[in-house]
Every structure is written in structure tokens, then in C-alpha cells.
């Protein structure tokens, strides 16, 4: 029976004879699925050319190439991925990891060409029929690296607003490793760092838990890591690729982690600076701020004997006398400076050039002179009432605090300015008010609206946490004085600060007014330089621009070839530019001295 069945049963296949065929008639007209991994697309303006897609591609199918019309600028390499479809395996890992989320894939899968070399193209830049296709692979709902920053431990606002103890606690090892892990090693940040620090390299050193290597990388470009690790303006973080779809890397805190973890006693051993061959040349440096220290450091490494002349009783310049201790503790400044001193750099304190010694004398006694005297003079808004004795400059007050002198504190204070110095004095005032009156009443007001306030975001947030009021977007009009006492500040609404060309040209609406009560007004709208140490003869030969700034070349050499100038008086103002200037000037000085021989 079974046998018969086995012969007849196969004939049932014939029943399909009358069925419609199931095959797809024109398979080429079939659309790929919604998630199909087809040809690449790239939103070319969103892409920043970070090359992370290239890094992950195991087929080496991606090259980063320049694209016409796309400029290299801060935060954008100007390169764009070009894909070789002779190699691509359509894994879409490049899409999944793209830091800006600009890269995706269409669901198109047909591209017919006789020439194999045509299958190389730049998604987004080359005109392709699938550029506008909506469907296709997009980054799924997961992350191949952590987009969220490891939170930094900070003192609670209540614990910190009475004292000047350092607020930020620093990363633990575990936290630092976790944060360092987020870096995609693209190196986009390096260009933006004024000192062009090897950021991805030292972050890698953290990941490898090789902090000595990390320290060496730091000192390659920055001899003040403890300081920068705390108060650097971290411009690098504003361009960090990871920041495009998440939080940028905490580059500054990671730098601090390296500096903190290496004991200062071992610095010379780690950095290999136990013995430095001296070349017998002498360099004078005016000012022990960041640029002066940086120049001294790199010159000392080259074998120069450096002498720094400092006007104040301690070294550090604005880092010590401009930045409050809760942000930058003095012992950390000392740690960095002591290391530089240990290289044989000498500092003469309480020496004011132009008074105790002259520039001409330095020119005679030394082979070259570097000056980085900084911006220490407060600038005034010059509105009516600023000549009153209870109107102060922020820089003066901050310096007095650091010198340990008592400063006047009123119950109600208004600070004019929206930069970091304004925040520093606001928060210092808040602390002093707290100590003195047990409550805080300080207002900081700036021309700029909150989104364009020059102060670091966290400074503003923390100031508010400490009960200071930050009221941006107002232009100061006059200080009201009654019975010889300040009663407050009149302001009008500021509509915009810059004109279309980006020039400083504030526009106000005079009809919207406000009045901030105050007994004391602090101006913090910028600082000026004091170049009184330049003698008339020197001034005559020194090229300056129409705003009275000394003109220097790329090596920070002035038109007097023995005189090099750097720091805030040239660029900035901030610490990291000073460091970069000092470093370049050191190289410039070395070239200059070698060329003299």
C-alpha cells in the first residue's frame, strides 16, 4: 500500500500547475525595507569630519577627504568620509557610532555602473538619487559609547557658600577611567586648545592607567597642569565630538586627574628632568603669570638660565591674584610653580620693572627678555557715578583677597559684567556677605543675554546655587547716589550686543528700565594693560597697533628682536593662551639666540 502511495503522492505537485507564480516580477523595482542597510547618506553640514566612522570600519572602506566648500575650522576638520564600495560590507557600524548622528543609510540598493572605480563616493557631497530617501538604517536606540558625562563630585552649595574651600573634588580612579572611556580619540579638540595639547593621547594614558605617560604628555605642551586642570576655560570641550549628541568629555577634569594623581616629589623623575645640560645663556622674564612661567619652563628645559621678575610677593600672576581660592587652591598653584623652580628657574619677588629695575638694564644683563605682564588694570564703564568711592574694580578686590587683606563688603552689591572675572567676584562677595551678614545679596548683571554670556556655564549655575542673582541682558545707565551713599544702579534693556558684522555695538530699548538696589558697585567689564615700564626710547622703536598693542610675529618676537611679548597683553585673556604663548616664545627665543651665534 505504502509503495503505491509513494508512486502516486509525488504527482500531487501538479496541482500547482494552475497557481499563479509567486516570484517577484521585477525584483529591481522592489523597495528595500524601512531599516534596510543601503547606500550611505551624510548630512554634510552636520558632520564634523571627526573620523570616528573611519576608525570603526573594519574594512578600511572609509577615507576622510577634503570637500569643496567645507572649511577647516574649530570643531570641524573640514574633511568628510568617502566610502569605497569595493570594501564596504554594509555593517552600518559607522552609522551607529557617528558622533554627530549625521551619517545614515538609505534603503536604496541599486547602483549600476560599468566602471568599478565609480563606486567611491562622498555621501552627502556627491549628488546621488538616494540622498533624499527617508527610509533606511538610522542609528538604533543604543550607544556604542557613553554619551553621558561622569558627574564630578562637588561640595554641596550649603557647605561651600561660606568658605573658600575648593568646590570640585576631582575624579576618583574609577570615575576617571569611565570618563576617559567615552573619548573617541578623534583629536578634533587639539586644534581648538590654544596650547594644542595632546588631549586624546593623555586620555588614552588614563585609560591605560599609565599616569606617568599622561604627565609626560601634559608637560609636552603645558607646564601648569594642576592649574589648568582646574580653571582652564576648556575651549576644547566646546568642540568635543562626543558633545554633539551627548555631553562633551570632561577634558579639564581628566587633565586634573593626571596631575593630581602624580606625586610632586616624583615629577622630575617621571619627566626625566633630573639633570639638564646648561647652555650658559640667560633670559629675563617679566611677570610670573602663565606666559612667563611657561616660557621659563621650556627655556629651562633647553638649558637656559631664567630669572623671573615679579612685582607681587608671590608668583602666579592672575592665577593667584585673580582667581578665587575655592576654584584654584593656592597649594595647587605652588605645586606647579615649585616644579618649574626645581628646574633652576629663579624668581625675584617684589621687583617692579620700571621702578626697581629697568627694561634697558635687563636688555644689557640678559641675552633676551620675555615680558608677560598681563592685564591688571580695571576698566570702567564710565557711567555717571563711577567715580564714587564705593565703586570698585573686580581685579583690585580679587587681588586684595588673595593678598589676605580685608576688603569692603556691603549688604547689597551689584556687579557689572558677565565674564568669568565677574562671576569670581560675585561668588567671592557672596561668601564674604555670608560670613559677615549671614545672608547673600549680590546681583551680577551683564549686557549679554544669558545664552551669550562669556562666563562658563557652570560658573553661572554655581553662582546661582550660592544664592547670587545673575540678571543678564541689561545695560548700566547710571549709579544713583543719595547723601553721598550709593543706592543702586539704573539699567535699561539691552536688545543686542553685536551688530550684523559681529562688532561690539550694543542696542538698547530705553523704555524698558530697571533699578538694582545696591550700596556698592563692582565693575568687571574687562581689564587693561599697564605698559608703563616701556621707556620712551623703547616705545619709539617698538611697533604697536592703533589700539596700543605691541605687534609680535608668530614666535611672539616684537620688532625689537631681543624682546618677546606674550600672555594676556597679546592674546586671551586666559591662562591657556598664556601658556601657549610662553611655549612658542621659548622656541622663538631659542631660535633667535641660535641665529645670533
Amino acid at each position, binding site marked *: 500500500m505504502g509503495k503505491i502511495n509513494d508512486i502516486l503522492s509525488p504527482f500531487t505537485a501538479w496541482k500547482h500547475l494552475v497557481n499563479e507564480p509567486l516570484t517577484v516580477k521585477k525584483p529591481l523595482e522592489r523597495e528595500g525595507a524601512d531599516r534596510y542597510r543601503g547606500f550611505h547618506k551624510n548630512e554634510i553640514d552636520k558632520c564634523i569630519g571627526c573620523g570616528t566612522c573611519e576608525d570603526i570600519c573594519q574594512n578600511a572602506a572609509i577615507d576622510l577627504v577634503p570637500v569643496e566648500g567645507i572649511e577647516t575650522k574649530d570643531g570641524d576638520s573640514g574633511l568628510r568620509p568617502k566610502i*569605497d564600495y569595493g570594501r564596504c560590507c554594509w555593517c552600518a557600524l559607522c552609522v551607529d557610532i557617528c558622533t554627530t548622528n549625521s551619517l545614515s543609510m538609505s534603503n536604496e540598493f541599486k547602483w549600476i555602473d560599468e566602471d568599478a572605480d565609480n563606486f567611491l563616493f562622498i555621501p552627502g557631497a556627491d549628488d546621488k538619487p538616494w540622498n533624499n530617501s527617508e527610509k533606511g538604517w538610522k542609528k538604533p536606540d543604543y550607544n556604542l559609547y557613553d554619551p553621558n558625562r561622569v558627574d564630578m563630585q562637588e561640595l554641596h552649595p550649603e557647605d561651600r557658600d561660606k568658605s573658600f574651600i575648593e568646590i570640585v573634588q576631582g575624579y576618583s580612579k574609577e570615575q576617571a577611567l569611565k570618563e576617559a572611556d567615552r573619548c573617541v580619540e578623534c*583629536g578634533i579638540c587639539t586644534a581648538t586648545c590654544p596650547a*594644542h595639547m595632546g588631549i586624546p593621547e593623555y586620555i588614552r594614558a588614563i585609560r591605560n592607567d599609565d599616569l606617568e605617560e599622561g604627565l609626560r604628555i601634559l608637560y609636552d605642551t603645558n607646564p601648569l597642569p594642576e592649574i589648568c586642570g582646574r580653571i582652564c576655560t576648556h575651549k576644547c570641550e566646546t568642540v568635543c565630538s562626543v558633545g554633539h549628541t551627548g555631553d562633551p568629555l570632561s577634558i579639564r577634569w581628566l587633565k586634573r586627574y593626571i596631575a593630581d594623581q602624580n606625586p610632586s616629589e616624583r615629577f622630575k623623575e617621571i619627566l626625566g628632568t633630573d639633570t639638564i645640560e646648561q647652555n650658559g645663556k640667560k633670559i629675563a622674564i617679566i611677570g610670573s603669570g602663565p606666559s612667563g612661567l611657561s616660557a621659563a619652563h621650556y627655556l629651562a628645559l633647553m638649558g637656559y638660565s631664567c630669572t623671573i621678575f615679579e612685582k607681587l610677593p608671590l608668583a602666579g600672576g592672575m592665577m593667584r591674584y585673580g582667581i578665587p581660592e575655592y576654584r584654584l587652591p593656592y597649594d595647587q598653584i605652588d605645586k606647579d610653580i615649585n616644579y618649574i623652580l626645581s628646574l633652576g628657574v629663579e624668581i625675584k619677588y617684589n621687583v617692579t620693572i620700571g621702578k626697581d629695575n629697568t627694561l634697558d638694564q635687563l636688555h644689557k644683563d640678559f641675552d633676551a627678555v620675555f615680558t608677560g605682564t598681563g592685564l591688571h588694570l580695571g576698566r570702567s564703564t564710565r557711567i555717571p557715578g563711577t567715580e564714587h568711592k564705593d565703586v570698585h574694580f573686580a581685579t583690585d578686590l580679587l587681588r586684595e583677597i588673595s593678598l589676605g587683606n580685608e576688603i569692603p563688603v556691603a549688604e547689597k552689591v551689584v556687579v557689572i559684567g558677565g565674564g568669568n572675572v565677574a562671576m569670581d567676584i560675585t561668588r567671592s562677595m557672596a561668601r564674604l556677605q555670608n560670613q559677615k551678614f549671614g545672608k547673600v545679596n549680590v546681583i551680577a548683571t551683564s549686557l549679554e543675554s544669558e545664552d551669550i554670556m562669556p562666563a562658563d556655564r557652570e560658573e553661572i549655575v554655581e553662582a546661582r546655587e550660592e544664592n547670587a542673582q545673575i540678571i543678564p541682558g541689561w545695560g548700566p545707565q547710571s549709579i544713583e547716589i543719595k547723601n553721598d551713599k550709593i543706592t543702586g544702579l539704573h539699567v535699561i534693556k539691552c536688545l543686542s550686543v553685536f551688530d550684523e558684522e559681529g562688532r561690539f555695538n550694543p542696542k538698547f530699548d530705553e523704555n524698558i528700565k530697571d533699578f538694582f538696589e545696591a550700596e556698592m558697585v563692582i565693575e568687571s567689564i574687562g581689564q587693561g594693560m599697564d605698559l608703563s615700564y616701556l621707556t620712551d626710547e623703547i616705545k619709539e622703536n617698538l611697533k604697536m597697533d592703533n589700539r596700543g598693542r605691541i605687534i609680535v610675529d608668530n614666535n611672539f618676537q616684537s620688532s625689537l628682536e631681543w624682546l618677546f611679548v606674550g600672555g594676556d597683553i597679546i592674546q586671551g585673556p586666559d591662562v591657556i593662551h598664556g601658556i601657549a604663548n610662553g611655549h612658542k616664545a621659548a622656541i622663538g627665543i631659542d631660535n633667535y639666540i641660535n641665529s645670533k651665534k
Partner: protein
Amino acid sequence: MKEIIDRLQELYPIGDFKQQNKSLALITVDKDKAVDFITRLKNEEGFLHLSIITAVDWLEKNKFQLSYLINNPTTKNSFVVRVMIDRENAEMFSIHHLWEQAATYQRELKEMFGIDFPGSPGVDKPFILEGWHEIPPYRRDFDTKNYSEETYFPREGRTKNVPAEYMKQKLYPDE
């Protein structure tokens, strides 16, 4: 699985016991005792199934690690029996008499790692490669990238740019 090892510990020098997961344990045995030990596990302890034989090249220690993965189909447990042998004139005793497919594994190991298994059928015959003149390719010191660069040619029309270097070139070439 620990229990088996505890029991056999006296007879065989077994080291580095590690219970990797519920049903897999790692152990290391001396080269001279290894075949004996594996035979014992197969014949007396029910480890009837050989999953793989493979090698790991510990170039920096100048050793090859041979890994025998054997499984007990009744208890569903497996051992990775690891044997460290010298990298120079690497040689190991064959187990083709225990499992037929062992000969194939050994033949492959000879070809890919240069580990000899004297007496293993066909061990000297090429398995995957034909006309191979370099060092055995799965050794760590064989550089595949280098080999392919020397043997093949790159595609025309490709240029490489490293973002950070390119930015330096464009934005601050002199620093």
C-alpha cells in the same frame, strides 16, 4: 567538575582549575601526562565528545597553548584541557586514536601553527593552504597586514587624512 579534578589530582598534575561557567571548567595539564589524562576522562569519566582542538600562540612567553575541548554528553559538562608546549620545535602527542576527527585538527595545527603531531595520519599533508612558503600563518609573528601589502596592491584613488593632523596643517602649520 571540581569533584572530578579533586579525585584525579593525585594521579595527574592538574593546575589552574577555573570554573568558567556552569558547565565549563578550565584546567592545565603537563604535556607528558596530557594524553593519558584525556584518555582517562574519555574512558572513565564519560567525556566522550571532542569539540575542538586548537592552539593559542603566547609569543611573548615562547609557548603554545593547546586547548582540547571535551564534553560529557551525559552530565553536559565540558573541560578545556590546556597544555603548554614549547614554541621551538613545537610537538605534541597525537590523540587520533581516541577520536577520528582529531587527525584533521592536528593536520590543521601543523599547517597553521607548525605544531607537529608525530604519527597522526596525514599530518604533513597541506590542509587549507597550497604552496605556502612563509612561516605558519596563524603564528603571532606572521604579519597578515604586511603580507597582504606585499602581495597585493592598493586600490587607486584613495587618500588618507588624519583629522587632527589635517587640522594642524590647515589651522596652525607652524606650531
